[in-house]
């Protein structure tokens, strides 16, 4: 956020101890981590937890819905990072400290059609929304290759419309037959009919910026809710 006036934090400052229960590889550099859920820890779909680690704080959106018995996050491993390699190597049952839930990226039911736009691990809050019963949305799922379309089958089943947008042109051949060859912005510019929508954007700042500016030009009566992965 760069507004200078962010909403007051809604996250508890309480720190919870959790245990790493499971690690599942989603593609070459991204894992889903399953953590124990502390007693009394409640959250809403779309919110984040914060790892309180000696190397600093790291926020990750929860993948599961609020009714789940455990906590799950989707993390891309940064090879020269200070935290994610440790998480990737941590032994099962290792302890981590978290706080939360944090954030306001919550689905707001409205009469305008909802368009979810995700890139990379930015798909996480949308998986949580789908798992908590949100339906009727259109999802633009951006990735470089088909391997990066995490949770695709589950999301296809929940969405009213699902479009895989693959930015690496050569990858399109091995992609789902209905995949769009190009970035999510290119799809929005060419294929989403003009109108008023509720856009939910989650991903890297460059994608958020490009989609937001496109919305200003092409869909100016729309609402935009953003969750930026820095």
């Amino acid at each position: 956020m760069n507004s200078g006036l962010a909403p007051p934090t809604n996250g508890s400052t309480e720190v919870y101890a959790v245990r790493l229960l499971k690690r599942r590889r989603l593609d070459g550099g991204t894992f889903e981590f399953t953590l124990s859920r502390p007693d009394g820890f409640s959250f809403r779909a779309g919110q984040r937890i914060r790892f309180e680690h000696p190397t600093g704080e790291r926020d990750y959106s929860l993948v599961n819905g609020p009714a789940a018995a455990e906590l799950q996050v989707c993390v891309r491993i940064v090879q020269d990072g200070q935290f994610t390699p440790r998480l990737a190597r941590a032994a099962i049952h290792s302890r981590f400290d978290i706080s939360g839930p944090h954030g306001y990226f919550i689905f707001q039911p409205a009469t305008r059609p909802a368009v979810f736009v995700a890139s990379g691990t930015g798909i996480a809050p949308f998986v949580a929304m789908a798992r908590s019963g949100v339906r009727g949305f259109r999802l633009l799922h951006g990735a470089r290759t088909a391997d990066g379309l995490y949770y695709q089958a589950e999301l296809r089943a929940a969405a009213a419309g699902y479009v895989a947008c693959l930015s690496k042109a050569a990858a399109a051949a091995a992609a789902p037959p209905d995949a769009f060859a190009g970035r999510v912005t290119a799809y929005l510019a060419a294929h989403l009919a003009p109108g008023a929508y509720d856009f939910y954007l989650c991903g890297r700042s460059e994608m958020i910026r490009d989609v937001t500016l496109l919305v200003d030009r092409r869909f100016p009566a729309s609402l935009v809710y953003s969750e930026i992965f820095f």
Partner: protein
Amino acid sequence: MKIYTGGGDQGRTSLFSGERVFKAHARIDAYGDVDELNSVLGALAAALPVQAAEIGPKITGLQADLMKVGAWLATSPGSPALAEIEALTTADAAALEAAIDQLDADLPPLRSFILPGGHPAAAWAHMARTVCRRAERRVVGLADAAGDPSRQDHYAWLLVYLNRLSDYLFVLARYLNHVTGIPDRMWQK
């Protein structure tokens, strides 16, 4: 961590309730003034004399209140996003009134207009008071433009709080001069 995205480079920004608006929008003006007030309070806190060290936590509390005020102003009336924001209550305005009464009890009676200034912290308090009044005027404008009384209600607690806060800042300025032994300068016609 980068704090910029560039999403506002063409003059628009997002409200907390999702709308994309020009940065010259009345709502942005209003929470911009609240943001400015919060910054001035930070300067005031940094300038507090040791004789008024007990005011520091109060200023921190006011700054936290103003974050809530800003979030509320960044959200359109009727938006479901309002459910995410904790509004201030009449108790917060009442707490300001109690603080005013407590500070005022130590002060000599005021018999004429005073010129803003004195101790640097007092000067910042006067500056904060005037920015607070500007923010209040912006909110009055938003409430007036809302038209429908039910939508005007969206701003009711803000108007009470900002009105009381500017009163508190005026008394605080006098208090800071008083405890540092600097007499208020009276306006000589």
